[in-house]
């Protein structure tokens, strides 16, 4: 009998061990809370079914599972960003996964305030931020913090968004009209009473690690900072004093599992684990079906403009791309490098969304500089000398490169589109893509600023606006060997 009973009891113990949480609310004692968290998903939806499966599996055996996003849910995938109901696929999938909370990231503003309001209404979870004042804006005021409930335990989570040098999050200022922002750490300190009242405090931030560390130093009462923005993959938690900082990379490649043991209104133990979603072998079937539907979106076949003639070659295609930058960003001049023009032609007829992504697949953003003529000439000259050929297709100007016997540029003659000389006393606004801005050498006193909009998005906006385009025999550059 003993021989039968012992294995039976051992088996039963194992079953209980794997099916019962270590800590439940059924008895008076510590409570185990698991926070699954992601950040900077950037509309990358392909792993969402794995995340849903993982979360659901844990929910079956643990009573207190919460799913967080530390912001930047949108921007980065045309099947989410470019559909008519911008951003909706992401919210739908986050709802299906059972997200409980999201911080507001800078890229949430990319949708525009009205669209973001709609997405928030559709979300089954709140977006929080303590340093946003939307009282004079279209944006609906977000709550500064959210209270999680784990049985009788209440866990406050404070949201914070990053600000750039201009005092605004990294998105185009035109998308944030009327919204006021306060320094995140300064504002967060006003909520330190949450710790006094509830005995614990979590922060769900979109500050980046470079912002989370000063936050931890300024507010040592925070127990855990679940962060985002810097796309930092932490295989182990960072400790700043007694504050634990965690972040999981970007693009929904990983999920963080932060486990809190709470006893007598205090977090008495914290653990963090990074789970690569590639290691999760099962998926939620319903969520996968939704992902497949969104990925098969015919929206990318939507006609946004009509080409009135065949566009062939770098001059025509580059001319289209740069005209889009000058028109949409309101700059005087723009340049496109020939290496960034990825198709040879656009045939006469319908131009579809997917044509734009074929033409310009890199995700480069538009960068604007203030430059004088000499600086513009240095950009053209250095670009030409990379391969001894015209490399930059312009809009807003025409130019001729004069070359020596070795084929190197010795002078750049530049005029406006009518052939008149440029004003030598004027500073021109010049738009280039981020690849040129980062990797080309040229003189510029102005540091330049991202417009937080990709060149592809810029072109889509332009084509949608102008409807009909023609680029027949466009030639805005010339090369003249020196005599």
């Amino acid at each position, binding site marked *: 009998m003993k021989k039968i009973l012992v294995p039976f009891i051992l088996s039963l113990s194992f079953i209980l061990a794997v099916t019962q949480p270590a800590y439940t609310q059924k008895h008076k004692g510590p409570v185990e809370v698991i926070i699954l968290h992601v950040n900077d998903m950037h509309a990358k939806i392909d792993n969402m079914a794995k995340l849903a499966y993982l979360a659901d599996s844990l929910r079956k055996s643990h009573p207190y599972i919460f799913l967080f996003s530390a912001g930047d849910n949108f921007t980065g995938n045309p099947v989410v960003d470019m559909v008519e109901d911008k951003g909706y696929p992401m919210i739908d999938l986050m709802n299906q996964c059972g997200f409980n909370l999201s911080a507001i990231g800078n890229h949430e503003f990319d949708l525009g305030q009205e669209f973001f309001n709609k997405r928030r209404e559709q979300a089954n979870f709140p977006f929080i931020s303590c340093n946003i004042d939307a009282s004079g804006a279209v944006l609906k005021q977000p709550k500064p913090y959210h209270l999680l409930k784990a049985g009788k335990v209440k866990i406050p989570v404070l949201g914070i968004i990053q600000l*750039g040098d201009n005092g605004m999050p*990294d998105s185009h200022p035109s998308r944030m009209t009327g919204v006021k922002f306060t320094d995140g750490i300064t504002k967060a300190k006003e909520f330190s009473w949450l710790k006094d009242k509830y005995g614990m405090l979590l922060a769900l931030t979109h500050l980046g690690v*470079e912002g989370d560390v000063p936050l931890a130093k300024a507010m040592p009462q925070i127990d855990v900072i679940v962060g985002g*923005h810097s796309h930092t993959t*932490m295989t182990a938690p960072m400790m700043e004093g007694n504050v634990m900082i965690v972040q999981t990379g970007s693009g929904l490649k990983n999920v963080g599992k932060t486990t809190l043991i709470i006893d007598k209104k205090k977090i008495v133990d914290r653990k963090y684990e990074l789970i690569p979603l590639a290691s999760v072998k099962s998926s939620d079937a319903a969520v996968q079906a939704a992902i497949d539907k969104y990925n098969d979106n015919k929206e990318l076949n939507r006609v946004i403009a009509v080409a009135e003639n065949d566009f062939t070659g770098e001059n025509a295609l580059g001319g289209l791309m740069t005209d889009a930058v000058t028109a949409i960003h309101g700059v005087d001049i723009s340049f496109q490098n020939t290496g960034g023009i990825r198709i040879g032609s656009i045939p006469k007829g319908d131009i579809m969304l997917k044509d734009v992504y074929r033409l310009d697949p890199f995700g480069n953003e538009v960068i604007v500089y203030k430059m004088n003529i000499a600086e513009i000439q240095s950009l053209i000259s250095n670009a030409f000398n990379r391969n001894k050929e015209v490399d930059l297709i312009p809009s807003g100007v025409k130019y001729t490169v004069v070359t020596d016997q070795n084929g190197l540029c010795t002078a750049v003659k530049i005029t406006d589109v009518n052939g008149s000389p440029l004003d030598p006393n004027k500073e021109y606004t010049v738009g280039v893509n981020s690849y040129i*801005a*980062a990797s080309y050498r040229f003189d510029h006193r102005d540091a*330049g600023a*991202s417009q937080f909009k990709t060149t592809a998005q810029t072109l889509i906006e332009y084509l949608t606006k102008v409807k009909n385009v023609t680029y027949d025999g466009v030639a805005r550059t010339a090369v003249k060997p020196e005599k």
Partner: protein
Amino acid sequence: MKVFVNRKEIAIFTGARVIDALRSYSLRSAGLVIKGIYTVYDRYGNITEPDGRLTDGQILTIRKTK
């Protein structure tokens, strides 16, 4: 803004991403990071994805992927 890549000071436009700083530092290195042969680390030793936004004064190190 100014950031540092392998101790070299890089002046880069406002709103730049990690990949922009890498391209400014060395196009070859940036390419190796994109291919996964090299990995970018922040000043705390954490892995930083190339599409992450930079903060003024940020310190990055590129090392061969382990």
